[in-house]
């Protein structure tokens, strides 16, 4: 199968959906001629023009609010939020408006909106350009949250998000944009709420999101030396969450580690670990372990920044601890 980059996959998803549905358009800072700051959409404006690939001023609350209104009245906007750290600026539009309008209107109004943004540290971008804030969005009823872990997921999940009639937030790991993966030529969609069993194994379950799926894979690889077979599950969407697939795996393996790049405290590893601990209680042979980003603002200095994100080594050590505990 052909291989394309995560960035290309995103551009393909958007191009295909924009061809399919004239109501779909994208707006944000430097999305048109510049093709976004990460050059993800280079050339998109040439096909669709500046009416549908709309450069905005540096006004995140404003253009997100405009997108909400456009979504309520017949368009299907994709909001491009350059850095996930800027979610701080659009929370009112996403949380008090977009997430609640369908419910508050008793089902009369819809907000078919996709917010594309990113996450991920170790890019030496400092504390305000390195956060992974998906836990916030997961906490809000009315928002769906997708976390693609490769070019394949990125394309399939984004296409599904664009066709969804609800507000969806999709987090792209900015360090994966150039990573290539096999992506079929033929059209496909990835349904929300269906986890992907990345790797099967009998001994321990790794639940990993986004770039942490790669980390989990490396860990599983090295654990084979100890004869440990890890099962890796990528939830792909956190809202809705495929609890059954996760819990059933842990019921088989009896051990679980949850790995995510958001801060560990009060982050999404807590929710997943709590659900596993409750639903697989009588099958668990060791405590569910959590590996999130260190609970510090992301430091600039490379030697410090690299310490803040879970590594394959951390996962291996956690797995050994869990299995020794058994």
């Amino acid at each position, binding site marked *: 199968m052909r291989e394309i980059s995560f960035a290309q996959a995103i551009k393909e998803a958007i191009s295909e959906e924009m061809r399919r549905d004239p109501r779909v*358009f994208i707006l944000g800072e430097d999305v048109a001629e510049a093709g976004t700051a990460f050059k993800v959409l280079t050339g998109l404006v040439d096909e669709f023009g500046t*009416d549908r690939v709309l450069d*905005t*001023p540096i*006004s995140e*609350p*404003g*253009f*997100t*609010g*405009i*997108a*909400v*209104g*456009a*979504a*309520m*009245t*017949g*368009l299907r*906007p994709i909001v491009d939020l350059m850095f996930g750290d800027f979610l701080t600026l659009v929370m*009112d*539009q996403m949380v*008090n*408006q977009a997430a609640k*309008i*369908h*419910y*508050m*209107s*008793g*089902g*009369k*109004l*819809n907000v078919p909106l996709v917010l594309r943004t990113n996450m991920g540290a170790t890019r030496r971008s400092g504390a305000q350009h390195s956060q992974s804030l998906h836990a916030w969005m997961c906490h809000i*009823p*009315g928002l*769906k949250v997708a976390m693609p872990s490769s070019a394949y997921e990125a394309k399939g999940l984004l296409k599904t998000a664009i*066709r*969804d*009639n*609800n507000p969806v937030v999709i987090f792209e790991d900015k360090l994966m944009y150039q990573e290539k993966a096999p992506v079929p030529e033929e059209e496909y969609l990835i349904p929300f709420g269906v986890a992907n069993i990345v790797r099967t194994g009998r001994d321990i379950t790794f639940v990993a999101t986004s770039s942490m799926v790669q980390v989990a894979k490396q860990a599983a690889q090295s654990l084979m030396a100890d004869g440990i077979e890890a099962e890796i599950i990528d939830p792909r969407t956190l809202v809705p969450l495929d609890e059954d697939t996760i819990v059933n795996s842990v019921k088989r393996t009896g051990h679980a580690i949850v790995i995510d790049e958001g801060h560990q405290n009060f982050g999404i590893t807590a929710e997943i670990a709590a659900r596993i601990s409750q639903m697989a209680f009588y099958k668990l042979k060791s405590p569910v372990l959590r590996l999130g980003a260190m609970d510090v603002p992301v430091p600039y200095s490379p030697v410090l920044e690299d310490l803040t994100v879970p590594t394959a080594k951390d996962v291996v050590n956690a797995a050994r601890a869990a299995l020794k505990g058994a």
Partner: protein
Amino acid sequence: MNTKRTSNREAYLQIYRQMSRIRTFEDNANKLYLSAKMQGLSHLYSGQEAVAVGICEALEKTDFITSTHRGHGHCVAKGARAQTMFCELLGKVEGYCRGKGGSMHIADQENGNLGANAIVGGSLGIATGAALSAKRLGSKAVTVCFFGDGALGQGLLYEVMNMAALWKLPVIYACENNLYGEYTKLSEMAAGDLCGRAKAFGIETYEVDGQDVLAVNELAQKLVERARRGEGPFFVVLNTYRFHGHHVGDINRTYYRSKEEERDWRENRDPIKNFGHWLIQEQVADENELKAINGEVLAEAEAAVEYALLASYPNENEVNQHVFVAN
């Protein structure tokens, strides 16, 4: 002159009736609150009727408005039914939002009301986005964004006005200046010049007496028509006054505004009373016709309240419906 009056007779009486509807709706909402039949927060529109009616009578059903926490007047003016509104205020399933929205979130999509909003300035983006849709879809719909003077404090306003101006969107920003935000005078909340805040973005701005329904309507007709032609956006300051407290529970107000000030506005600047006098003086209608209209409106409102009080609440299983729409 007089010919125009008579030719417009229907329109004038409709304007009068709509203002009367709002006043009567609010009087009944207030009664419901004071008699503990209605819970929560209600922000009454009484006193500002000429703004909502003067503007909405210049709009088509297919035009959009966005509203505020003080939204009953906008909702009535855009064509909503009192009965369905009272059902919403009482949390009944027959309300515009099945009782799930309440006073601060009434939306009436059929009539183009995209909803009240409990976030000050919360609908500024929505209104501007609706205007973007109209332009992109070529629907010719115009959107009016109602907001209070207090919303001038929200940075969002300046972000969306800038984009509306850059993109020439068919939106009219209608700032209802009733002199107060909650319990604080506008002068303590806003430096400089209100219209200047829109002029800076190259937006054409107007200021009008929000108690003079004909002046408001005349301006609205002109601007709506121009916005439809793609000459928008526009910004209008409408000077008005709320007769009641900030919300139904705001009874003792003398620490932030004087009884004299309130009396002056109620006695000399009541938009309904004054328009009534004008109708009679211009011989568009006589005392009895107006009395009749008010009577009809009152009967309609009381029937609506009665119906709403007896109407049923949503089923418990609705509590987790409408979180997401099915695809």
